[in-house]
């Protein structure tokens, strides 16, 4: 009953091809280590996104909540790069300011999932057979459940809002992490140095803390970067449905939902927030795949 979640199969396409005589060429081989142009762009966009999230005032053209009804629903021009919305607010500046919330939802929920997953799997590993089996049964049930539905259920219980949306996505992502951490830790437990530590009489908790966790985390961190894109889509979907950040906040999904009412008159309202969102997710997917290629040694040889 365990259907492994497929975080991003994009990663697969961007991982180096497996060796085959037909395709081997010295150029392709050397390209593995180099920063390809697409990757350079992706890292550049990521830097821009981080700047927009940390210091939006550096990129904005006017305050994001500045209402100017006279200039409402303008098409993009030299003054208003992305046009204005129904209240005359500058869409470009709102998109810039929306970066923070969007990234916060994505990164925050994945971080929450990581912490929860690590905690739960530690519990399972240290707690003995009964606890392990109970925890993993529960994880199985949660994994056998579409993530978005779980997130919606959590929002239904907690109510809408930025923090609750973050918790909802984090909770729905956590089971995957729990399973992965546990699997990695169990694999590491069989290796020689852990056995040696056990034989030398190190207490179980210390072995877990000093050897199992640190050595099982790298592949988990790679999964985390790959998951951020998915989490961002989930977060903006929630806010598109009106279950995320509250109204005046500039969040890309919420901006899109507002713009939906002006589809026939002002296309800029929906095009630009969505474009920003898509570029953001593409960037994270490409960067995540690159990280995975560089750090996850095992994914180099084909797929698991």
């Amino acid at each position, binding site marked *: 009953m365990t259907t492994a979640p497929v975080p991003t*199969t*994009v990663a697969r396409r961007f991982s180096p091809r497996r060796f085959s005589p037909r395709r081997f060429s010295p150029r392709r081989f050397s390209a593995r280590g180099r920063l390809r142009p697409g990757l350079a762009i992706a890292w550049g966009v990521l830097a821009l996104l981080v700047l927009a999230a940390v210091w939006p005032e550096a990129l904005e053209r006017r305050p994001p909540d500045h209402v100017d009804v006279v200039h409402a629903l303008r098409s993009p021009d030299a003054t208003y790069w992305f046009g204005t919305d129904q209240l005359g607010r500058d869409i470009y500046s709102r998109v810039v300011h929306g970066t923070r919330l969007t990234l916060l939802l994505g990164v925050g929920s994945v971080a929450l999932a990581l912490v929860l997953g690590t905690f739960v799997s530690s519990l399972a590993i240290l707690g003995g057979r009964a606890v392990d089996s109970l925890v993993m049964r529960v994880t199985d049930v949660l994994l056998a*459940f*579409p993530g978005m539905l779980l997130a*919606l259920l959590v929002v*239904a219980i907690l109510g809408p809002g930025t923090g609750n949306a973050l918790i909802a996505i984090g909770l729905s992502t956590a089971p995957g992490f729990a399973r992965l951490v546990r699997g990695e830790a169990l694999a590491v437990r069989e290796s020689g140095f852990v056995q040696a530590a056990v034989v030398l009489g190190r207490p179980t908790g210390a072995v877990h803390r000093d050897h199992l966790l640190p050595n099982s985390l790298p592949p988990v961190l790679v999964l985390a970067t790959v998951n951020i894109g998915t989490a961002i889509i989930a977060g903006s979907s929630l806010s598109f449905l009106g279950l995320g950040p509250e109204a005046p906040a500039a969040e890309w999904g919420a901006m899109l939902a507002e713009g939906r009412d002006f*589809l026939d008159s002002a296309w800029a309202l929906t*095009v630009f927030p969505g474009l920003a969102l898509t570029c953001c997710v593409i960037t994270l997917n490409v960067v995540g795949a690159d990280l995975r290629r560089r750090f996850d040694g095992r994914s180099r040889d084909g797929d698991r």
Partner: protein
Amino acid sequence: MSGVLRWLLRRLLSAALVVAGAATVAFAGMALTPGDPVRTLLGTSPATPEVVAEVRADLGYDQPLAVRYARFIGRLCTGDLGDSYQLQEPVGQVLAEQLGPTLELALAGFTLGLAGALLLAVSTAGRRRLPVRAASLFELTTVSAPGFWTGVLLLGLFSFQLRFFPAAGDTGAASLVLPAVTMALSIVGTFSQVLRDAMERALDQPFVLSARARGTGELALRVRHVLRHGLLPLTTLSGWTIGALLSGTVVIETVFSRPGLGRVLAAAITSRDLPVVTGVVVIAAAAFSLLNILVDVVYRIIDPRLRSTLP
């Protein structure tokens, strides 16, 4: 044969466990929810304390938690999902009415997405740089673009600008086109990536060489021999696919103002209509589990190697 039956029985049992788990999580959620369900039910209408108490007793909210849980599970076993707070109708009835349009959308989107992926993968697998690059870019974009954005874009372009399709509602086949395309776009990228990967692996196999040596044409080779191998890994995506379709309906039905389970769920969450939320969750969990079993059965039919080796 008894092995197959035992396997099926075990899978059905674990599916029942998942549904029970989902129901429990949903019930726990309802019990934990801040706020008084009776107040929610009565809405803003002024009610005397006597009326409130009467409604409370009527719904069984005056009973301890364990009793409520037992009653909830008991009713669930008989197919009774309770009454909706907002619509004042049995949840089962509400959801049954909405099931049709949602299945229609999911099925149309899935078929379209699969067809697109087959076309993409068969024409680009194992090819040289340019076509693969173009296909990869398309896949990366569709995987990364959220469904509600592509939906809104299609809606703006084809309904509001060109007026090809109706903008809202469910009025026959024409109103299904854009939602189905949106749904298809959200799954086609992943499908095509996995399919091409598997086909490229199959293209390296000796049987391809022998087929080529016999003089089989490239297209016939790909469609008749390689595609079969490519289809296998797609079945392992089934869990992801069903999840994507389920969550896709929520967003897409909202974008296109289509009737359906997803839109009912979104509305129920906003209005805190918890019986409806619970109903959708339980039904979705059941559908998800049963479909997964079905896929496993199909998997064994497609792949003869698996027929003798039951897990």
